[in-house]
């Protein structure tokens, strides 16, 4: 909620002393409103005025950083509720849960399992970025600290789920340098937890028995000077958790209520314990609606493949298409003698086409060239998927590596056949089907 010039003017000392370089306080206020100058450039502003101004001009949702180095992640900082309004900026991060309530064998199995999912999809590394270490009621400091140390061994950023200030302190002593989140403040312990988090210099997670108590506790923590928070919106059941997640985000972004202007934690283990399929459904639901950190019992390929794909889609810039890197992608065990197929670098087209090509089982080399990240017809119309661009790429990059001299082009650009034959001597240009779904049949017929 930016202030206008008049509102800012009311806060200035109205001396017109020109020390800020402006002829009048009014002129200065106008510049501040436009963002051309900063309020601190007036040496005579009162502390109160600066505080109320920075409050009014602060973004509606704070950006919170957790972790260090490769494990540093930015949460929050969102400005819109729907992705078509503006890009969502901070991706949802997923945490696999460990608990002192698990036996050693189960913990060891999980610790072995977590690093197994680690792969790349359209230039992005996909893995469980966080590990949630839960301290159950009956655990003591020694037991919890031992588990935290074990978890830290995987090298993922930790979220400590612990409501006992003494135990939390002991655990932070062994891991605070990696900047974990301490998720454990509530209405009854927030003062002590705040001191522990502040001393360790880590982000504090806050929860409440309902949304009102959560609100009051956040307000109380802010009063103690802590604005380095995440809000655990997990309620007693799914319905309450979903309501909390939406209401917190909506209050911050739509109603400008900054007390709720923090990232969220959704713990699916609490509301769907033992039901990995329900947790999968909820991971998707809360990726769509406002979970900053989502805690799950497992992240195997079954969860990761759909979830990371979904996240990659939801958090793309609506103005900027996703592109695939140019290159030769051998499919179905293709070698240098396998058929060459080409299409555009628009990620959606690439995925649909490569999926169909894989389904055909026919070994082939899929060649992708920079076509502006547009669909076949659009990039052809824009001159980015042309006889020139294709032939140049083939001569420079494909001919040195691939012996086969047969090139399959999309049916929608059949018009390029003649041009390509002229520009690529020795190549047989084959016009493929217009739609990707017809590829399997087309390739099988070709083989026959």
């Amino acid at each position, binding site marked *: 909620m930016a202030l206008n010039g008049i509102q800012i003017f009311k806060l200035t000392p109205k001396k017109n002393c020109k020390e800020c370089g402006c002829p009048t306080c009014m002129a200065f206020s106008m510049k501040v409103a436009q963002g051309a100058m900063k309020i601190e450039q007036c040496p005579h502003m009162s502390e109160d005025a600066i505080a109320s101004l920075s409050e009014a001009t602060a973004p509606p949702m704070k950006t919170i950083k957790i972790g260090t180095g490769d494990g540093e992640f930015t949460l929050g900082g969102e400005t819109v509720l729907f992705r078509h309004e503006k890009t969502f900026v901070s991706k949802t991060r997923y945490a696999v849960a460990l608990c002192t309530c698990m036996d050693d064998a189960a913990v060891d199995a999980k610790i072995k399992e977590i690093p197994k999912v680690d792969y790349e999809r359209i230039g992005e590394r996909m893995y469980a970025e966080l590990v949630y270490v839960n301290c159950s009621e009956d655990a003591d400091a020694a037991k919890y600290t031992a588990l935290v140390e074990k978890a830290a061994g995987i090298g993922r950023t930790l979220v400590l789920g612990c409501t006992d200030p003494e135990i939390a302190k002991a655990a932070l002593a062994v891991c605070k340098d990696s900047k974990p989140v301490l998720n454990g403040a509530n209405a009854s312990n927030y003062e002590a937890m705040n001191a522990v988090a502040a001393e360790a210099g880590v982000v504090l997670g806050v929860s409440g028995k309902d949304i009102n108590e959560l609100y009051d506790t956040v307000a109380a923590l802010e009063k103690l000077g802590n604005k380095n928070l995440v809000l655990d919106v997990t309620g007693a059941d799914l319905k309450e958790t979903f309501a909390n997640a939406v209401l917190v985000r909506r209050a911050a972004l739509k109603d400008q209520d900054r007390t709720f202007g923090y990232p969220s934690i959704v713990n699916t283990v609490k509301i769907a314990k033992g039901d990995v399929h329900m947790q999968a*459904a909820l991971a998707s639901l809360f990726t769509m609606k406002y979970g900053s950190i989502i805690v799950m019992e497992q992240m195997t390929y*079954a969860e990761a493949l759909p979830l990371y794909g979904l996240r990659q*889609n939801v958090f793309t810039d609506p103005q900027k298409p996703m592109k695939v890197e140019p290159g030769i992608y051998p499919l179905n065990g293709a070698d240098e003698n396998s058929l060459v197929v080409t299409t555009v670098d628009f990620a959606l087209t690439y995925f649909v086409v490569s999926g169909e090509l*894989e389904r055909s089982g026919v070994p082939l080399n899929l060649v992708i060239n920079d076509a502006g990240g547009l669909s076949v017809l659009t990039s052809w119309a824009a001159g980015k998927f042309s006889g020139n661009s294709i032939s140049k790429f083939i001569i420079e990059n494909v001919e040195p590596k691939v012996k086969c001299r047969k090139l399959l082009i999309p049916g929608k650009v059949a018009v390029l056949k003649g041009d390509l034959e002229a520009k690529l001597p020795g190549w047989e240009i084959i016009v493929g089907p217009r739609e990707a779904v017809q590829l399997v049949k087309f390739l099988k017929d070709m083989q026959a």
Partner: protein
Amino acid sequence: MPFNQKPQKFNAKINTVTIGSGDKTVALGGNSTFPFYSFDAPTENTAKVGVEITDMGLEGVSEGIKAYYEGATTMADIAKKAAAMEGADFVALVLEGGDPNGENKSVDELIAIVKEVADAVDCPLVVEGCKNVEKDAELLPKVAEVLQGRNVLILAEKEENYKAIGAAAGLAYNQIVGAESAVDINLAKQLNVVTTQLGVNAQKIVMNIGSACAGYGYEYVVSTMDRIKGAALGQNDNMLQMPIITPVASETWGVKEASASEADMPEWGPQDERGIDMEIMTAAADLAAGSDAVILRHPQSVATISKMIKALA
């Protein structure tokens, strides 16, 4: 200062469209909030879950699905088991064998299957064509004709064949018209406009605004649904107030993450699990964005998604 919870009230709502006949019906739509926002206003109808079966029987389905249908030898058997699935609200029969680029089954052959299925179950039915616009223009009016009185949802007319299908389903045989467009709010609206211009009652249209599998350009689905619900509720646009149905299974089971065998991709683990989660996660995202009904294939997905919907109501 305590938290001031401000509900988001709309003076508009999504149409309620009922499919099925007799005492076995389901109501789609009817809500005046964003999906699952029951804290803003009470939920009129919860989202519904359909079970997909196809004229191709159990060909090509995953192990877990095959196991569920074990012992079913005829389409009638398969339909009965689908209708009995835990969490199922309706059955969706896909006539994929009609595709001229595939099996190219004749209209007569497919109509016989439609009749067999319809006779076997009394639950609400959705019948989907083969996606080929010419074949569907021939096939779906026949489907609408033979199922008169069952109040089925015919999926779907498209821009290219809405006259034939929309008129047969919506006017001649009084069924529910499914209007399919390709993930674009303007195309969705345009198809509803021209369909109502044929004389089809707007209250008898259900939209398939286009679907995608999670990870496959899914952002277009999210934004199209967000915008459609926003316009339907926020601007009271009555050409976008039709409930949305999303065939999920047909998108998700074909992608390599769900279809690759464990032998080909050992590190990915069991194929059935991957297929289930791809279906579940895509369906949950569809429902969060605005689908009033989803069509799924695996019994585990149907049970989980149905449970999630009920827990959110």
